[in-house]
């Protein structure tokens, strides 16, 4: 094994994965915000412009992207609650359960949204 693969293996534990997913989901959500504001700003150009955008957003690809967005949001929320529980309540012995709840809850939220949009 190379030094890099050893380093990766050393970090392959639930809490570290939760840390990475918390950061990555946060960055992706932050990157989405300008698009969100851009979409909302279409209303400033009148009803037709917004309706045109909303009909484009009915595109299945956009719906799939929305599922990803909901998944990121749920993941960020779950991982954030994990950190808050850890820091405010000192529940270190529950870590693996909390990480599992965060991931499981995110998947449930994403799947629920997926079933609703199609």
């Amino acid at each position, binding site marked *: 094994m190379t*030094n890099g693969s050893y*380093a990766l293996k*050393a970090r392959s*534990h639930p*809490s*570290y994965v939760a840390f990475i997913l918390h950061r990555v989901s946060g960055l992706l959500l932050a990157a989405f915000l300008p698009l969100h504001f851009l979409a909302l700003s279409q209303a400033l150009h009148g009803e037709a412009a917004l309706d045109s955008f909303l009909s484009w957003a009915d595109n299945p690809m956009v719906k799939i992207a929305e599922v990803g967005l909901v998944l990121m949001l749920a993941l960020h929320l779950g991982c954030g609650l994990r950190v808050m529980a850890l*820091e405010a309540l000192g529940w*270190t012995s529950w*870590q693996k359960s909390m990480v599992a709840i965060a991931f499981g809850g995110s998947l449930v939220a994403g799947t629920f949204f997926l079933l609703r949009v199609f």
Partner: protein
Amino acid sequence: MSKLKVSVWRSAGSGAQEYFDVPRKENQTILDVVTYIQRNLDPTLSYRYACRVGMCGSCAMSVNGKARWTCRTHVDKVCDSDALDLRPLENFPVVKDLVCDMQTFFDKQKKAGGAFLGAHTREDSVALIKPDSSGRMAVDEAIECIGCGVCYASCDVVKWKPDYLGPAALNRTWTLVKDERDTRRLDRLRAVSGDAGCHSCHSQMSCTQRCPKLLSPTHSISGLKREVSRAALKGEL
């Protein structure tokens, strides 16, 4: 008898891994492997150990990418194949080969307010701490730290932010903050509330994952975060 192919960090020049073949035996520890190399294959190899029974915390090194105490780590536990990769602990300057310079590590314990200061003198009677008191219970595990540096070597925050006090120093401070004999609680909280203190911990928990004594520095650090927050809300800091 099968052989272990052991790759060992040698610091000569710009440093490189050097390979040794070591006979594999039953109940063989990583420290046994390093000692075999030094005594039979290359006497110039430098490494550090003392007690050999998991008490002194001096023999830690990176084994197949993970920081471990080597005297209590069996080869069978960490080797799926016959390959073994040994390096000095990460996040420490290297003195030579597998020997790290622990100076900064212990300096950070001082910076974090790790020296006990009680109100009693040697003329007073011994302070009695009830084993079931809340302060004593809160640090029941944390006081067992042997200062091996495994948590510090496993922490990515230390790697990214070299000023960060690190899990061991913060764990030590936590034990003193909860010590009812202690007289410097607020000084300690001030020492760990800065940019390099407890709030820099990202709860990655590699320290807790790797601690050979199965302690949880993350738990101690989260305790310090709560103590600092409470003191700040009360206007004590």
